[in-house]
């Protein structure tokens, strides 16, 4: 299955904020986690992830710091800010409204047709 570009872009911010709300992380780990969470359906490019992280940092939703990764090189870590948590809560409300609406219309039509209903409990 291919997830359209618009949908990937729209879901990117809440996903990143959600992952960082659990614990601070770095680019590569975030990418892996997104892939795992979506069962491999969401494959983000670096060109999507890093500019997004930098934008969120500029907006003040996340902050970054450098920490030694293996004693030789340093790695850039990101953590969510208070403002970022508020933003995440807002995004959750918006997504819940969209998901509810979609679920409503699909459960009403799925009785008539045999469209495999997606699992929305995530």
């Amino acid at each position, binding site marked *: 299955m291919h997830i359209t570009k618009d949908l990937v872009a729209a879901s990117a911010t809440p996903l990143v904020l959600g992952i960082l709300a659990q614990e601070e992380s770095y680019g590569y780990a975030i990418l892996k986690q997104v892939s795992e969470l979506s069962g491999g359906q969401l494959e983000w*490019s*670096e060109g999507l992830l*890093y500019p997004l992280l930098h934008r969120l940092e500029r907006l003040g939703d996340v902050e970054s710091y450098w920490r030694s990764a293996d004693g030789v*090189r340093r790695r*850039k870590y990101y953590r969510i800010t208070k403002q970022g948590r508020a933003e995440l809560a807002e995004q959750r409300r918006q997504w819940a409204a969209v998901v509810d609406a979609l679920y409503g219309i699909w459960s009403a039509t799925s009785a008539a047709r045999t469209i495999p209903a997606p699992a929305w409990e995530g």
Partner: protein
Amino acid sequence: MTINRGTDLEAQIAEWRAHLHRRRVLDRTDAEELEDHLRSKIAELTEAGLHDDEAFLVALMRMGSLDELSREFSREHSERLWKQLTVTAGDDGSASVRSRTDLGVMIGCAVAAAVAIKVPALFGLDLEDDAFFYGRNLSLFALPPLAAYFAWRRRTPLSVVGLLALLFTLGAVAANAYPLAADDDTALLTALHLPIALWLVVGVAYMGGDWRSDRKRMDFIRFTGEWFIYLNLLAFGGGVLIGLTAGAFEAIGLNTQTLITQWLLPCGATAAVVVAAWLVEAKQSVIENMAPVLTRVFTPLFVATLLAFLGAAIWTNSWIDIKREPLIIFDFLLVVVLGLLLYTISARDPAARPGIFDRLQLTLVVSALLIDILVLLAITSRITEWGFSANKSAALGENLILLTNLAWSVWLILGLIRGSMPFARLERWQTNYIVVYAVWAWTVVFAFPPLFGFA
């Protein structure tokens, strides 16, 4: 994390990093972050059993093309595509120490220039009452500090510094030793020509004494254009500052006229001469040169105007009516045309094939020459009727100098367009011709007053 640090792998990563650094939209920390990403991916792949080389290739392929990556980054970091002039900030210590010293020396020279113009006031010379004195000597206040700045910056040898000092002294002698009065023609000529003569002395300082090199001379021509533009920008900002100062203080009932005319304006103007030069030096490799850009815009417009003027003059047959001023105006016309030619040359790629712009340039110079020849014919009759005066001689001399330059330039541009002469000849002709300007300016300053009986 364990990476098998083979030297091959490190070399490959280093090469990839070099590619990253060449992208302006990716800064150092981005490159570091992306390198960490690549290394993490490689580590994962090698742990899964891939060989270093394979892991590197697969990781690279998954990352996608650098073009794509830069494009995505440029959406978030568009500001990095605008070159910014950072004057003191620098990551590498040595360069920033150097630029900070440079800033200090520049400020020192600017202050010296600002102080210099106030020194005569100590001896009772007022800016307004002794305007004649200040008019003659203006370039002697601002330009020596500028030359000093360049002498420091280029680490000019002492012998050249001595020469510079000698030339400036000569200028001071020329401006003040002759018994001239404010309403003498030759006094006005001195006030107009001394700045040109001394500007070329600044050129010697700019070139670090190496004035025989035609590359350095071309650099000085480029510098002059940029300096002029920056000076005008500074003047514009200064105008706003003065206007606001006057207005704001007047609103609370204080008159700032003395402060502005006696201090702000003269000190600001002389200091701006140095500051503009420093800005040009600092931005040299950072920002595109403006003068050639303006030249590109205005060359076609001037061609159209000159052709229209030629047409109108022939149509109305009004050459006979020429009065006294035209010679000066047409001197200016030739200066502008020469400027357009010069700054196109300064930015032209020497190896480029002759193109449409070279033809446009030829049209411009030829039409200016035609106009000027017609004017000269008309003026000659006036001179034979009334005889030579200092003003007329100076204007005529300048006209002939510019005419000669442009006439020979036409020949060289023709050769360039036909492909029979290299562009370098046109360039060298212009850089060599600077000597003629210098000789002429110094001649007017030194020889004209005695020649015309200090009138």
